[in-house]
């Protein structure tokens, strides 16, 4: 007598049921293990990442503080989607349990005639749930631990001092058990009294009961889509009312609608799946072609085999959901980052600030001035980066003193040493093209809607007014100026890089301020010069917008600067690189320049915003594609095995020889297609609230990759299933 034979009846039945439905059981357990696997990997990685210790000189030991952006940041970022995935998995398992209750009803009816009472139903479901949970915990423990250690080995090689989080890891893995139990027994709530005789005789469920289940599934799907649309509406409203607040209450409200929308659609679609396939079968009831017959048989198989079909649908649905949601969020996040990227220079430019603050050691006064060894720095810069840089001459402007503590420890500001005639700064035009909305069509509108600072920086080291020649203009723009700009510059126009500083008569106005306009304390008007300028001058100006707007001010020719009485000095080393330098080249330049200077002089590089690596998305697609196809093909094989008797009967009755392959192909198309479409749509529902805030108000996901997954998987699975030979059908004794 085997060990299983000695188990209590409910446990024995659960074990054999799981064994009989190996594929469905394995898929369900794997799905249940997903959240624990993710949590385990994160847990181990976090422990390793934060387990490093440092020994101070005094012998004390300190743990490294976890850095946001490391594992903690990663965990915070994935926590909401991981939670949602866990909820959806539990919902899918529950839905699968619910739809497979038809076959469970039959087993219970068989037991009832031998005298089983109604509590056995609960005991079997409990045993099944606990067994699935244990299986999921084992999978999670093995895969999660391996994944965590692999992550640590690959990305955190200096992991000498850490202990494996045994208790936390075990708890995380075992968390699958209560989840599986709840998912198994919750669907038993509600009416389950069905006539034993009707069940044994194969009489269909009462109309009302079937109608209720169908109606419930349909209702959930409708409710889910309604929630999704409501989420979109709230997102649109939020974007209209608070366009610059991406994390407003509207956004949170939209997501509080989008998350239940996804759960409702997935549960509803799972419940509705058998009914949907039955509807397809019914719709083809009168069609008489071989193709229609194959579709009808495939639909009927899908409708009447929920124990096989629903877990497959749930698993593939989940794969599509995770892939689409994750890649969509990644893509939209990257897109937002590109738009909001704070440019410091033009693309592939490098600069070295040449102004030293020259803090006074005896008083709270600074006197910014160029560093001494500019030629040496330029030579090093040019040789290490192999460029011909330009030393731009800037005009010292007014600025606020740096925050400091005075000799009594009170907060204050370091004062600037103003010359007697003051320092110049450009004036924001009140009647220019930006102010009046008459910006020339050739000019980018972003020139007028630029984010802060809306004025040129009042900085002690950054310059606003530049004095130079056409070569300097070229390096500032990052490309050669067009003919008009060049001609304007040659006729001594000021070349202004921000349209808001040019007035209606195409002039740039400069105001000179003295210390009286700059109060050194936190008082009203702190961030703008106040009062009447010491003097004001205007110069004819031409706008030359930068490709990437930055606060660069205006460039004047030497003659114009002389006419205005501007005094310039070497302020910035600027070079346009042919291409983005490598990290080692950047480091080499940084080291060389720093070592040649007593001051903190270093190069900055503008390489532009980082963009998502297409290889990453492609890799994720391959994994999702492979996983979905593996599940789909296994399901097709299982379906063909289970239907071998029926196919043999059909063949003996004169059906076409390849009826088995045709039915398998259509089974794959229907079941896998249903899953991929619902999974993709659910992910799109989840991303709806973020659409209105995007630059391009259209779905931001990787259309091609998602399309390949949603459409390609069913088609490939169908093609493989159709290509498989029918083979000999073994005789089964009945």
């Amino acid at each position, binding site marked *: 007598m085997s060990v299983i034979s000695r188990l209590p*009846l409910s446990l024995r039945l659960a074990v054999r049921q799981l064994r*009989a439905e190996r594929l469905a059981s394995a898929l369900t357990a794997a799905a249940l293990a997903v959240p624990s696997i993710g949590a385990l990997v994160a847990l181990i990685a976090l422990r390793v990442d934060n387990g490093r210790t440092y020994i101070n000189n005094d012998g004390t030991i300190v743990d490294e503080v976890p850095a946001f952006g490391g594992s903690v940041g990663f965990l915070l970022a994935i926590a909401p989607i991981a939670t949602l995935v866990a909820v959806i998995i539990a919902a899918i398992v529950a839905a699968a349990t619910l739809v497979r209750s038809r076959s469970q009803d039959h*087993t219970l009816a068989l037991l009832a*005639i031998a005298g089983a009472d109604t509590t056995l139903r609960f005991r079997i479901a409990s045993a099944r749930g606990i067994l699935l949970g244990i299986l999921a915990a084992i999978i999670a423990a093995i895969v999660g631990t391996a994944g965590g250690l692999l992550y640590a080995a690959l990305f955190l090689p200096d992991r000498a001092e850490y202990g494996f989080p045994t208790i936390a890891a075990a708890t995380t893995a075992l968390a699958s058990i209560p989840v599986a139990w709840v998912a198994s027994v919750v669907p038993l709530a509600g009416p389950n009294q069905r006539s*034993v*005789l009707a069940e044994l005789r194969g009489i269909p469920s009462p109309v009302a009961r079937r109608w209720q289940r169908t109606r419930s599934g349909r209702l959930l799907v409708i409710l889910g889509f309604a929630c999704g649309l409501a989420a979109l509406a709230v997102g649109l409203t939020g974007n209209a009312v608070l366009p610059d607040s991406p994390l407003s209450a509207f956004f949170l409200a939209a997501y509080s609608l989008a998350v239940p929308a996804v759960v409702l659609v997935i549960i509803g679609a799972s419940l509705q799946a058998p009914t949907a396939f039955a509807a397809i079968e019914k719709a083809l009831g009168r069609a008489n072609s071989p193709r229609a017959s194959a579709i009808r048989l495939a639909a009927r198989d899908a409708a009447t085999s929920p124990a096989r079909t629903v877990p497959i649908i749930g698993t593939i649905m989940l794969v599509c959901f995770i892939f689409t949601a994750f890649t969509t969020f990644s893509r939209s996040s990257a897109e937002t980052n590109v738009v909001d990227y704070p440019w410091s220079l033009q693309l592939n430019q490098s600069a070295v600030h040449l102004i030293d603050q020259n803090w006074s050691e005896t008083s709270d006064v600074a006197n910014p001035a160029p560093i001494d060894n500019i030629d040496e720095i330029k030579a090093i810069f040019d040789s290490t980066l192999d460029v011909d840089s330009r030393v731009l001459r800037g005009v010292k402007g007014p600025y606020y003193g740096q925050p400091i503590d005075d000799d009594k420890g009170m907060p204050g500001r370091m004062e600037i040493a103003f010359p007697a005639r003051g320092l110049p700064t450009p004036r924001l035009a009140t009647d220019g093209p930006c102010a009046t909305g008459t910006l020339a069509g050739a000019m980018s509108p972003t020139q007028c809607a630029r984010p802060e600072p809306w004025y040129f920086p009042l900085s002690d080291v950054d310059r606003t007014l530049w004095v130079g020649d056409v070569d300097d203009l070229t390096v500032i723009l990052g490309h050669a100026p067009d003919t008009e700009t060049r001609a304007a510059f040659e006729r001594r126009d000021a070349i202004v890089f921000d349209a808001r500083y040019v007035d209606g008569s195409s002039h740039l106005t400069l105001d000179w301020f003295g210390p009286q306009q700059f109060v050194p304390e936190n008082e009203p008007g702190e961030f703008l010069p106040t009062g009447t300028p010491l003097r004001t001058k205007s110069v004819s100006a031409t706008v030359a917008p930068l490709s990437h707007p930055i606060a660069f001010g205006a460039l004047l020719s030497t003659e114009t600067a002389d006419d205005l009485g501007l005094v310039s000095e070497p302020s910035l080393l600027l070079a346009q690189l042919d291409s983005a330098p490598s990290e080692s080249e950047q480091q080499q330049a940084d080291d060389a320049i720093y070592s040649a200077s007593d001051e903190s002089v270093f190069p900055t590089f503008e390489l532009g915003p980082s963009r998502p690596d297409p290889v990453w998305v492609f890799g994720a697609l391959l994994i999702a594609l492979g996983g979905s196809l593996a599940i789909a093909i296994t399901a097709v094989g299982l379906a063909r095995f289970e239907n071998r008797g029926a196919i043999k009967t059909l063949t003996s009755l004169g059906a076409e020889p390849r009826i088995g392959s045709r039915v398998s192909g259509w089974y794959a198309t229907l079941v896998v297609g249903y899953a991929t479409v619902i999974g993709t749509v659910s992910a799109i529902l989840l991303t709806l609230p973020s659409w209105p805030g995007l630059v391009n108000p259209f779905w931001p996901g990787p259309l091609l990759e998602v399309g390949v997954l949603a459409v390609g998987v069913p088609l490939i699975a169908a093609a493989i299933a159709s290509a498989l030979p029918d083979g000999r059908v073994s005789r089964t004794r*009945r």
Partner: protein
Amino acid sequence: MTAPSPLLSLVGVGHEYAGPSTPVPVLRDVTLDVVAGELVTIMGPSGSGKSTLLGIAGGLEQPTYGEARLNGRVTSTLTAGEIAVVRRREVGFIFQKYNLVPLLTVLENVALPLELDGVSLVERSAAAREALTSVGLADAAHVFPENLSGGQQQRVAIARSVVGNPRLILADEPTGALDSVASEGIIRLLRERTDAGAAAIVVTHDARLAAWADRVLYLTDGALHADPVGAR
């Protein structure tokens, strides 16, 4: 000398199934007493309510009206748990489609009523082996039902129905799917049980089976008659 009290008593029993719009009557005012040692066959066309009658007799269904008494107890007054106990101790079911639990071995199927009743593994295994031996299937104890022929599965179902020595055996077309040799073997088994003191109600189309009965009744359109003429 007083007449033995009936083991099963149906008094004015009627049953209706829920229809799309109105209830569909299946049994109409059926009255029947069956005593120990009696083999009663009920014949009738398909859809006449024979299986429903057996279901009510065994406590699987409750009558819409009227009263069903099993060993003196009115089934409608019992809880689901109490009816389950009655079913496993006092009633044995046999069906045309065998209705064995595919997830259990032959031995476990036969021992199922005893297992549900809390009988120990050793005791129930011994009783199940004895029952299997009585139907000639002692060697098939550890195989699963799907590996048996139809006749063998029916014999397993019979072994299960008698393993607890129930006082009432209810058989629904027990020979419907069997050849004549296998059918006769089943009939003999049932006769032996009733000769040993059990009562049996057998629903059948098989006239040969009716020949072994103490009483033959006819069910037509839900009404029970003592003769086929009345049935018409």
